[in-house]
């Protein structure tokens, strides 16, 4: 058996621990720069605030006092996440931290006679008692099913935060009504296609397809998901810290950028930050995607325009110089004069461990020289602070973020600890 412990509306829950009067009230946490909603309490969801919705669209709710907003406070969320993980690790030998608010727990070592329903409810209660964070614990024979089980806990308060979904008839009953796009591993692109072309709406519609159909539509990844839904564990439990498969650095700018040099400087800095992370985990990347978003609204969709370019490297690389050159080249291709740019970012993809890099036959980069230079750059930046030195296009002063609604760092800064009146 596997468990997934998922913190409910995690960022909102963190804020509520220190503001108990916000319990039961609409609360929204905003993205970096206070741009859009990235976490919503159930009450805010009921008011119609959507995930990712720009703040200006629900500003009236904030100004009227109907919704309380917070700027994202990652010091607080990181510390509360660590507390939840510590609590979880008391109940099982191995946990895999999947994201800031989700952890998988490997229960294969536990006695098969264990009442996992009781176990799950107990874990949920303990997390709440110790940290104040409500946690949904789903237990199932596979990780994909455990994710579904944890979603059930959120839908049905009667589960008291924990449920064990393991009998075939129970699984099938749940899949019949479970939305296809909510299955872990299916994603938006496939679910859109499945709905549009095949009229598949529920997990059941996917579950009842032939394995060969899934294989031809989605390949091996899809088959893995399909098998997991049928109770066959296929996704490895990764309790050792896994290197990240993708590294993304992106920001919404406080002010629109119209100057190409300013934009290059910012994007170049994102690139440097991303590549430094890459080197820190001892990896190389095979591709880099650069993206920018303009303020110019598209005539038809009414959405701001998003453009991105992918560059593939003949040999996987961890050189800031090489990756930055590719990013700058694509940025130049995409940049258009007269537009204001709201957001930009860099995504490193096809990440592999540095020692597994296959050299291209004709490799025209002096890798050893780059490597020496990079290690000097990293050590100077580590010693003297981030962005002390970088490649020439990089902006060195960072971006000022809008964080108007930031809560105190209650647990990570002595000057910010809560005040108790007496």
């Amino acid at each position: 058996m596997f468990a997934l412990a998922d913190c409910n509306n995690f960022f909102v829950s963190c804020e509520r621990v220190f503001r108990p009067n916000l319990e039961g009230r609409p609360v929204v946490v905003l993205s970096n720069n206070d741009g859009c909603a990235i976490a919503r309490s159930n009450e805010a969801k009921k008011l119609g605030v959507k995930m990712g919705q720009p703040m200006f669209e629900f500003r009236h709710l904030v100004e009227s006092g109907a919704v309380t907003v917070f700027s994202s406070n990652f010091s607080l969320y990181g510390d509360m996440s660590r507390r939840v993980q510590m609590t979880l690790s008391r109940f099982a030998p191995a946990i895999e931290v999947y994201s800031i608010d989700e952890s998988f727990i490997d229960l294969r070592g536990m006695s098969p006679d264990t009442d996992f329903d009781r176990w799950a409810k107990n874990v949920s209660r303990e997390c709440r008692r110790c940290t104040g964070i409500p946690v949904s614990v789903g237990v199932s024979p596979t990780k994909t099913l455990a994710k579904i089980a944890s979603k059930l806990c959120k839908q049905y308060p009667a589960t008291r935060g924990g449920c064990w979904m393991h009998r075939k008839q129970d699984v099938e009953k749940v899949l019949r009504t479970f939305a296809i796009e909510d299955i872990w591993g299916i994603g938006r692109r496939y679910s859109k296609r499945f709905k549009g072309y095949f009229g598949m709406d529920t997990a059941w519609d996917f579950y009842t397809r032939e394995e060969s159909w899934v294989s031809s539509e989605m390949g091996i990844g899809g088959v893995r998901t399909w098998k997991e839904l049928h109770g066959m564990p296929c996704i490895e439990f990764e309790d050792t810290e896994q290197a990240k498969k993708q590294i993304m650095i992106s920001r919404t700018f406080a002010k629109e950028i119209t100057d190409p040099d300013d934009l290059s400087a910012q994007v170049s800095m994102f690139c440097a930050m991303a590549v430094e992370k890459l080197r820190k985990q001892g990896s190389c990347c095979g591709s880099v995607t650069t993206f920018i978003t303009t303020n110019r609204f598209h005539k038809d969709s009414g959405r701001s325009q998003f453009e991105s370019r992918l560059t593939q490297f003949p040999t996987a690389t961890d050189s800031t110089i090489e990756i930055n050159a590719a990013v700058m080249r694509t940025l130049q291709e995409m940049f258009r004069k007269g537009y204001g740019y709201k957001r930009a970012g860099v995504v490193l993809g096809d990440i592999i461990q540095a020692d597994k890099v296959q050299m291209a036959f004709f490799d025209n980069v002096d890798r050893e020289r780059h490597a020496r230079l990079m290690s000097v750059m990293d050590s100077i930046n580590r010693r003297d602070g981030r962005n002390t030195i970088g490649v020439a296009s990089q902006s060195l002063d960072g971006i000022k973020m809008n964080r108007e609604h930031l809560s105190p760092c209650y647990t990570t800064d002595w000057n910010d600890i809560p005040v108790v009146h007496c």
Partner: protein
Amino acid sequence: MDKEDTISRSGSSESDEKQQPPRLFESIHAGFPSPAEDIPGTALDINKLVVKNPASTFFARVSGDSMEGDGIRDGDILVIDKSEEPRDGAIAVCFINGEFTVKRLRIQDKSITLVPSNPRYRPVTIREGDDLTIWGIVRYVIKKV
């Protein structure tokens, strides 16, 4: 603080130790061996004394004088364990009327009374239906002298 960094420091110290390969020697260096090398023991850590469960321990600063009789004064720092069950006679941090307060609990059949320890203040009795959250139990008070 870096988000990823925070996440990676995941489990307890136990799991951290597990991932470390066994060490045969502390380190290899020339010169006279330190006579303290084999003596186990590390410097005292105040956390070990005041923090029973790090996951559920929080700190807060006191403002006011209603608990002076218990030695809790303005500016002191409270060490609060959120996981401890409220019991009669414990000193608790409560959330009431939109703010945190610290008082001694008197728990009776049908009511909870928040008792100050300064004669200038009066106990407040909470009845069923009143909005009170007992947030955590005070285990230590840190004060500057």
